[in-house]
């Protein structure tokens, strides 16, 4: 997106309660703080595995998930921490998973790229680009068959739209009018590849037309705008009208993965986007609207910071995974035959 200003939207809080807005803000701060803490943990001690930060993209995760009910479904990506935070996965369990502890969300079996929490409809981060897309559609189909009224959201990147599975799934979801919402986190890059270099149609929302799916393009660094788009898509999905494709224009503030230097980006571009940071913008908008003071916002940050310290302490003091733990998770003994 060379011309981001085209989607830059003012904050419109119409119909949103203060509590709700502060809740979204808090979630974004939690997601940010979770990853910033991780960043320093990875710098300062041997941590298992790797991680991909969604720093700068928090408004997408939080805005979308805030429009969902607790039992709605989400599938996520290799860059999944913020989605999990938004879906209410406990920070303690998430942090413990990063430390490969038994108390982790996935009992230490998954790690950063496979965080999930089935009790909260979080069906998983997927390390295979695009793999979560049909799985969300399947969850939506399941909701339809069971008549549960649930909807399913799949988050994926701009790069993922070039996988065949995107095409196959959107076609089926549209044909069957599944209660699904496909959210493109267009952070301008797939690793080193700018979206213009990897997508012949860089206006990704327009790809919806190939499946007769309405495509929306939103200011992905404006949590209220994202929420509003999601709310419309959720309403559409629940009323049986079918899926929506939402392209959220955002930016990956950090490298692709921990410490990746992103030498392929221009410093000026990175700087420009820093000023559009979704948390900064929301903080400003809340204050401008008289919904929160600087002190109240600082208070939230302090509380979140304390939560993260507690999460790290929880993780550190949790029992390590034992070498043979995994053996119980390979297959499920079926007893009901």
């Amino acid at each position, binding site marked *: 997106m060379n011309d981001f200003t085209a989607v830059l939207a003012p904050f419109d809080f119409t119909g949103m309660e203060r509590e709700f807005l502060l809740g979204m803000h808090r979630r974004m701060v939690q997601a940010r703080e979770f990853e910033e803490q991780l960043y320093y943990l990875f710098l300062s001690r041997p941590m298992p595995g790797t991680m991909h930060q969604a720093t700068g993209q928090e408004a997408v995760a939080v805005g979308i998930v805030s429009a969902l009910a607790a039992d709605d479904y989400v599938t996520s990506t290799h860059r999944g921490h913020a989605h999990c935070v938004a879906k209410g996965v406990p920070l303690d369990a998430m942090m413990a998973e990063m430390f490969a502890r038994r108390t982790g969300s996935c009992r230490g079996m998954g790690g950063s790229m496979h965080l999930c929490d089935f009790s909260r409809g979080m069906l998983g981060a997927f390390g*295979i680009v695009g*793999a979560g897309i*049909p799985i969300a559609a*399947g969850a939506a189909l399941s909701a339809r068959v*069971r008549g549960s009224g649930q909807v399913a959201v799949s988050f994926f990147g701009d790069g993922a739209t070039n996988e065949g599975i995107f095409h196959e799934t959107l076609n*089926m979801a549209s044909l069957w009018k599944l209660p699904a919402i496909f959210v493109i986190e267009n952070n301008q890059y797939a690793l080193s590849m700018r979206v213009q270099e990897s997508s012949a149609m860089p206006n990704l929302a327009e790809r919806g037309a190939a499946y007769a799916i309405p495509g929306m393009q939103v200011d992905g660094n404006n949590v209220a705008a994202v929420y509003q788009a999601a709310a419309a898509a959720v309403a559409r999905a629940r009323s049986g009208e079918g899926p929506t494709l939402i392209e959220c224009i955002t930016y990956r503030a950090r490298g692709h993965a921990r410490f990746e230097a992103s030498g392929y980006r221009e410093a000026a571009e990175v700087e420009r986007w820093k000023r559009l940071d979704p948390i900064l913008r929301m903080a400003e908008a809340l204050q401008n609207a008289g919904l929160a003071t600087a002190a109240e916002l600082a208070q939230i940050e302090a509380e979140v910071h304390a939560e993260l310290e507690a999460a790290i302490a929880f993780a550190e003091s949790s029992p390590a995974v034992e070498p043979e733990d995994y053996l119980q*998770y390979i297959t499920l003994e079926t007893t009901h035959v």
Partner: protein
Amino acid sequence: MSDPVVRELSMMEAIREAIVQEMRRDPRVILLGEDVGKFGGAFHVTHGLLEEFGPLRVWDTPISEAGFMGVGVGAALTGLRPIVELQYADFIFCAMDQVVNEAAKLRLMSGGQASVPMLIRAPQGATGRGAQHSQSVEAWFMHTPGIKVVLPSTPYDAKGLLVSALRDDNPVLFLEHKMLYGSASPGGGKATTDPTIGQLGRVVPADPYAIPLGKADIKRAGRDVTVVATAVMVHRALAVASQLAGEGIEVEVIDPRTLVPLDSETILASLRRTHRIVVVTEDTRRAGVGAELMATILEEGFDELDAPVIRVCAVDTPIPFAPAAQDHAIPNTADILAAIRRVLE
């Protein structure tokens, strides 16, 4: 109590009956696949199901194997028990990522939160249609941790195994040999037949029954040599066994029925009686099912062996079109006979 009703069924009919009965019993079972609804399936297995169960249970999909396999995974994760049908097993490679990286791994990756009770059905085996419609794919999935693999040889087994596979909480790949269906493909042509495929296991109870996964079946008892065979090869091995019985050689024929889990105990018990063993499968030789069976036997039964195990498998080749070439590439009764004679030397 009256006697249970039994009839003769083809394997196609037996599988269909199992699906119908399970769909009546369990509203969570749904079907997904190309032409499975209106058309009734490329091999007629799902004939009439759309009419009985309606479009919320029977989903005619576009030609999007990866996509609908993934839809199956998502449905399985969220309370349904999907049956995903592929028109030919060769096409599973189009959906391989969803099978290997998602369906089979999700349980472990989630630390036991997820279960993926999905049944993948796929017709396989060489029937003269060239290299892209002929493969036997079991070995790839035997090597895929997290998925079970079923390979029935008779209608009776197929019905009972399908019931268990469908009630299993793990992903299961159910491979149906086209030569065993006993039905024509509505895509054209008459039923493919093989003279060695006789009446074995055609009598099928009308009521549902479950054959546990991981239980081999001794299709013929014998004291001189053990033959472990799957699918069509069970029938070829039995034909050879009959012939050898005329010479006073008693061949024991074991059908593992499921490759994962594998009932090595039944195989080893037989080996302890016969001390000689031949393994016959239709998949290609290198790193195939035969290799795994040999390795298992070697590990657990080395001291029982009076002769090296022999594997009779397909040649390591894409299956050629010309019938003469295809027949050369796939094990036939002469190959099996020769192997048995060699192991008895």
